[in-house]
């Protein structure tokens, strides 16, 4: 075959740009991870290999508390967001199209476009009032806030899965004497499972990672792992923060990998 005159894959400077971009992305992260294994107190001068800072972080009560809190919030928020998103996805895909449906899609996905800081400030103001009225100041606020901004993330893969599903399967189940609840339980739900798992994990990672809204909404002594790390950076910084960040990175990558494989299987 003759060589085509123009090939989108062969462009001058393509390699350089790619290399630069990847370096910008991954070099800082690589440095951060490498210094998590630094034996010395410094973030910039290498003092030999050690797991010292990982032990230090693991034994730090504040880190333990923050990690535990992050996990509770992420699991609760992701669970509630997934349930809400599943219901929203069913309601927006299993009805004949009607005027206002695309408005509904936009409305569900709007939180993706609202600047996070706006949501954060708004929640801060509302929750401040609610705290005064009710006297309650527990983790509930953080969980609610996280649930709210996680819903669109959970909604997207679930809706995609529902739209890709052959609707004659549900019709076939109804035809074979399954009442609506059984159609959902025996056919829709099992086929939707990969979408639900994907939605849950996406919501989980997003919640785990959140700084801005958590920082605004949390009451005193309610640090999550990211807000704790942010707080630490304002004080004396040791490679302990690198160790926490490295552990966090591994967890996120692991989750996203699992998410990828679940999505690929039976897609």
């Amino acid at each position, binding site marked *: 075959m003759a060589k085509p005159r123009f090939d989108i894959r062969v462009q001058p400077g393509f390699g350089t740009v790619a290399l630069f971009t990847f370096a910008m992305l991954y070099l800082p992260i690589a440095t951060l991870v490498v210094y998590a294994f630094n034996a010395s107190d410094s973030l910039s001068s290498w003092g030999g290999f050690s797991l010292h800072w990982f032990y230090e972080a693991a034994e730090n009560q504040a880190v333990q508390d923050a990690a535990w809190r992050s996990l509770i919030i992420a699991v609760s928020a992701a669970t509630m967001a997934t349930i809400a998103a599943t219901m929203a996805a069913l309601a927006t895909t299993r009805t004949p199209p009607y005027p206002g449906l695309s408005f509904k899609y936009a409305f569900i996905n709007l939180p993706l476009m609202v600047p996070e800081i706006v949501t954060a400030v708004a929640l801060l103001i509302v929750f401040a009032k609610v705290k005064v009225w009710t006297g309650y100041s527990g983790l509930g606020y953080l969980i609610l806030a996280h649930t709210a901004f996680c819903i669109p993330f959970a909604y997207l893969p679930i809706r995609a899965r529902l739209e890709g599903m*052959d609707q*004659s399967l549900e*019709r*076939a189940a109804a*035809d*074979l004497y*399954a*009442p609506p609840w059984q159609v959902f339980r025996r*056919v829709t739900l099992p*086929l939707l499972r990969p979408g639900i798992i994907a939605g849950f994990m996406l919501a989980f990672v997003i919640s785990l990672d959140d700084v801005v809204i958590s920082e605004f909404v949390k009451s005193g002594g309610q640090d999550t792992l990211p807000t704790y790390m942010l707080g630490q950076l304002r004080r004396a910084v040791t490679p302990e923060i690198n160790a926490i960040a490295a552990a966090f990175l591994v967890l996120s990558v692991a989750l996203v990998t699992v998410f990828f494989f679940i999505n690929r299987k039976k897609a």
Partner: protein
Amino acid sequence: MPEPSPVPDARIAVDCHGIVKQFGEGPRALRALDNVSVAIRENEFFTLLGPSGCGKTTLLRMIAGFEYPTEGTIRLHGEDIAGLPPFKRPINTVFQSYALFPHLTVWENVAFGLQMLGWAKGKIEARVAEMLKLVHMEELAQRRTDQISGGQAQRVALARALAPAPKVLLLDEPLSALDYKLRKEMQIELKRMQSETGITFIFVTHDQEEALTMSDRIAVMSKGRVLQVGTPWDIYDKPAERFVADFIGETNFLSAAMVGIEEGVARVRLPSGIEISASLAEGYRPAGEATVVVRPEHARMVTTGGQLSGVVENIVYFGTDTHIHVKLDQGSTFMVRQQNSRSKSCGASVGDRVGIDIAPDAAQVLRD
């Protein structure tokens, strides 16, 4: 052939009466079905035949309960079911896409309806085994549905729909995805299963050949209306309208002039000036211009004479027979179908002047 005697209501399985289905409202409203009435008898292989968009699938979905009529009633053995949801109707469907549950095995697919009906475990096992045997799929019971071929999926879909012993089985173009040979096999299989189970089959297809070979009766549909209901013989030999004649098989249309009517038989003058007899639909008394139809196999090419004459325009060989297209002196084209034999060719070549002989009783005046 005598008209079919009126059947008492008790033997009607599905009675659709005055069905109207309208999508949308106002000037942009679409009438998918326009005052459709058909009565499908018990134990009958009934086919809804028509081009895509004629409303046949909409009618089927209505009988299944996936659509609700805008107007009209649907009765199953006399009971009005138009308002019942699909899961409360003793009617099962074989879907065009088969719609097998991909997360279940072949066995679980066939057992699904029985489980939903709350059958006892032992009874389900026996029934599923029986059904898988009926469709020759016993060996593959534990396969996942993505591990079987299209023909096998078709059989599983059939077994799944037949397992609960429905009163009526609906089949939505179930053979359209199969290749020619498999389709022919399944046509015979379907016929066998229908007679073995004694279940009323309502079959939807756009394939007129499939409809003619399989059906006890056919309803020909076009643009949301039923044009004719009858046996394959009725539909083919006594088409009620131009659309039916044109859609089913191949037909020659001749414009002719009415000369007279005697004892229910018309005398018509062909464009060539020759008069022939043509049958008439009962009670139809046209005058002036009329359209006469002649099936290609009811005409013969002759070298001299004939009621029509023209020049051979094209000869198409089909294996079992040959189609000879003759350009008539009056302008239109007439097709003759001639059986092939080993010993001789069709007896003419392109450009030859030939005559056409129409068999007695073959011509029919069409209701326009």
